[in-house]
Every structure is written in structure tokens, then in C-alpha cells.
């Protein structure tokens, strides 16, 4: 569906995705899975929509690796299926949003090669949901060195950034800085796309801002938990409701009370108020540290709740589409957490804390 006339394509697509969203695994089912053993969970997953991928891959993989790969493939396939039914404007915005998977895949391959992992192991964790398709990623995995991989990415839209940052890797010693720069570049590009006057761009821009805020807050709180008070502006992404200077200034505050006070004052999005108040009300340092640890998942839950709210306020816009894509991503994330947790014999409570429900 490429031509758009009036709002009907939007209504059609948003309804389809709303129905798909209803088919996602429910909270009660996750709770039931937590009480099951790994073979039972595998059987349960096999009975759902992941059956086709599991059947397809079962000749080459087995056990938990089979599950992991089937989940990743299913996610990529669901994303590509969504793209197929979107009308022009929405398709453009959704494709921009899905380009983040390219960064993740490229970095996974580079890191995997650096650590001399087997191609099969790297392949398991790739999610070919972006512009770089499965065949191209397979070709990259088959290459011998990272230099060759970077060279092969010449046509990629982030190639120039990748190339210049790749040269700095031996000096820096890790891919972390490269990752930050690539994501900053990615967000700058999608903000530009959203502001290009595209229909529905305002809603897309609101989503990007929310996404950047969540990422920045997650990073800020993670750094805070590690007790790091150095300059953090390199780790922050510009374009959110907080400025990079604001976030950087916040991290420099030593005193706990003052930090939360200032953070609360800088909040422009009301969705975060309850979250910050909860952190602020921690009575002991241990309690605060526990809440900070939980804050990563808590912020993701806030993001999903906010997306759900926005998709009700703007029922025929980019919001219901992105809400489905995000919820699908977290379904995969949850299933992985449960299967990996069960395999490692983690206690049920611990696995439950990792779940985004």
C-alpha cells in the first residue's frame, strides 16, 4: 500500500496493529511461564506464532540457541511485515526508527569478530530488522576481519561516522565511544526526518524526544549508581526534553537530596514525576541503590505506558505502530530473559525483576 488518500490507510493499519498487539503474550502467561521448567516453556513457545521459525531452524540449531535465534528471526520478520502494510508517510518514519537495529547488528558483528566468536554464535544474536538485511549481515559475519567488514559497509548511511570512529577504536580500546557516536548520529538523522515536513512528523518527533529522554535518564542513573561524577556529555543524546548541559550538570551534584530536587525541577514530561519521587523517597543508601538498579526496567515501563497513553490520544498516527513495535521487542526480550534465566537456574523473583510487563 503506497498511495495514501485520506485517513483510511491510517485507520486500516492502526487497527491491524492494535489487533496484533492484543495477540502478544499477556502478563498472566509470563507468570505461568515463571513456574514452568525450560522444556515446558520451549513447548509453549513452539505452540505460539514462533512455530514456523523454530521448525525452520531446528535442523541446524537446538536447545536454547534454537529458541534465541527463532525469537530474533520472528522479531525481524514481524517488523518487516509491519513495514509492508504501512502507507507512505508512516512507512518512512517507521523505517527510520528501525534503522537503530542496523547499528546494533553492525556493533554486534564487530564485537563478536573482535572476541573471535564463531559466526553461528554471532548470528544468534542479530536481529535483521533494519535496512541491512539478513543476507548482507550473513556476508559480513563470514568475513575474516573487522577492517573488511567496515570496508563492506561503504554504502551504509552511517558509513562515514563508522569509518572515522573505527579508526579511533585501537586508541580508545573499546567500541563504546563508537556506539555512542553512532547512536547520536542516528537520533540526529531521525529528528531531521521527523522535522522534514512529513505528515505526522510532530507525533514522531514527540516519540523520539521520549525515547531520547528514557535513554539519557537510564544512562544518567546508571552512571550515578557507579558513583561516577566525571563529564558525561559524551554519553548523552541531544534532542530530548533535557539538554545535554542540564544532564551533565545534574551528574556533577554530589548531594543526593539536591540531585533529585534538581532532577525533579528539570522534568518537562509529567510521566517521570512519580518515578523521580519514588527514587527521592528512598530512606537508606541501600534502598536507593536497589531502586536505581531497578530504574532501568522501571523507565522502560514508563516509556511503554506513555506510548500506550499517546496511542490512545492519537489513535491513527505513528504512536500505535511504534507502541506495537516496542511491545513486540519486549515480548522477545521477556521470553529471552525467562529462558536464559531458567537455563542459568536463577530464582523466580530475580527473573521477574528483569521482565518488562
Amino acid at each position: 500500500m503506497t498511495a495514501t488518500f485520506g485517513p483510511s490507510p491510517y485507520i486500516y493499519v492502526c487497527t491491524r496493529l492494535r489487533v496484533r498487539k492484543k495477540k502478544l503474550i499477556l502478563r498472566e502467561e509470563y507468570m505461568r511461564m515463571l513456574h514452568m521448567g525450560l522444556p515446558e516453556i520451549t513447548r509453549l513457545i513452539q505452540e505460539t506464532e514462533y512455530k514456523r521459525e523454530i521448525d525452520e531452524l531446528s535442523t541446524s540449531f537446538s536447545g536454547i540457541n534454537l529458541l534465541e535465534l527463532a525469537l530474533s528471526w520472528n522479531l525481524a520478520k514481524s517488523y518487516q511485515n509491519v513495514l509492508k502494510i504501512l502507507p507512505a508517510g508512516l512507512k518512512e518514519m517507521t523505517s527510520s526508527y528501525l534503522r537503530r537495529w542496523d547499528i546494533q547488528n553492525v556493533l554486534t558483528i564487530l564485537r563478536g569478530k573482535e572476541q573471535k566468536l564463531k559466526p553461528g554464535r554471532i548470528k544468534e544474536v542479530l536481529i535483521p530488522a533494519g535496512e541491512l538485511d539478513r543476507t548482507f549481515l550473513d556476508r559480513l559475519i563470514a568475513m575474516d576481519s573487522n577492517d573488511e567488514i567496515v570496508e563492506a559497509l561503504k554504502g551504509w548511511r552511517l558509513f562515514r561516522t563508522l569509518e572515522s570512529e573505527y579508526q579511533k577504536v585501537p586508541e580508545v580500546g573499546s567500541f563504546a565511544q563508537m556506539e555512542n557516536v553512532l547512536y547520536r548520529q542516528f537520533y540526529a538523522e531521525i529528528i531531521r526526518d521527523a522535522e522534514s515536513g512529513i505528515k505526522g512528523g510532530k507525533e514522531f518527533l514527540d516519540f523520539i524526544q521520549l525515547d531520547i529522554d528514557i535513554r539519557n535518564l537510564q544512562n544518567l542513573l546508571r552512571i550515578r549508581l557507579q558513583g561516577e561524577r566525571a563529564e558525561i556529555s559524551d554519553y548523552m543524546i541531544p534532542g530530548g526534553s533535557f539538554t545535554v548541559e542540564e544532564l551533565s550538570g545534574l551528574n556533577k551534584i554530589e548531594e543526593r537530596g539536591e540531585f533529585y530536587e534538581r532532577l525533579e525541577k528539570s522534568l518537562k514530561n509529567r510521566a517521570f514525576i512519580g518515578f523521580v519521587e519514588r527514587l527521592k523517597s528512598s530512606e537508606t543508601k541501600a534502598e536507593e541503590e536497589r531502586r536505581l538498579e531497578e530504574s532501568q526496567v522501571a523507565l522502560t515501563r514508563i516509556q511503554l505506558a506513555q506510548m500506550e497513553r499517546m496511542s490512545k490520544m492519537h489513535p491513527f498516527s505513528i504512536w500505535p505502530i511504534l507502541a506495537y513495535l516496542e511491545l513486540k521487542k519486549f515480548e522477545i526480550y521477556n521470553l529471552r530473559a525467562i529462558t536464559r534465566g531458567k537455563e542459568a537456574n536463577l530464582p523466580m523473583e530475580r527473573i521477574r525483576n528483569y521482565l518488562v510487563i
Partner: protein
Amino acid sequence: MAVENLTGLSVEMIEASQMGMTALAAAIAVGSTGIASAFAEYGIGSAAVGATAENKDVFGLVLLLTVIPETIVIFGLVVALLMLF
């Protein structure tokens, strides 16, 4: 001989004019309610096709929901018929 009123029109002419006006009113009643039904149905129809594409079991239900705005045009038709006969 036709009785003429102050405007110089005969009764037959006035009657014919009234008939024409009634027919025009009936046409407006059916036409405007038809447009209103179409406007209501295109949104419901798009959503119905979307829902059916994902879950074929809802076809019967969404078909019923799609034709509910047809009642608007039926009202228009009833009003038109009352005007004409």
C-alpha cells in the same frame, strides 16, 4: 380559466413549482444522508477490513458494525418518501 394570484402565476404553475420543490427536498434528504452514511462508513469500513485481515473470525461482527450507519440513509429515504407521497 386559471385563477391568477398577485404574483401573476396560475394555481397550476404554483402547484407544479411546489411539486418540484418537494422533489428537490426529497433529493437533498436522500443525498445528504447518503453522504453522511458514506462518511461514517469509510472509517468503520477501513477499521473493519484491518481487523478482519488479522482475525477472520470477526468478519460477521464488523460487517454488522459497518452497515449500522446505513440507518442514517434509511431515515433520509423515509423522510423523502413521506414528502413525495
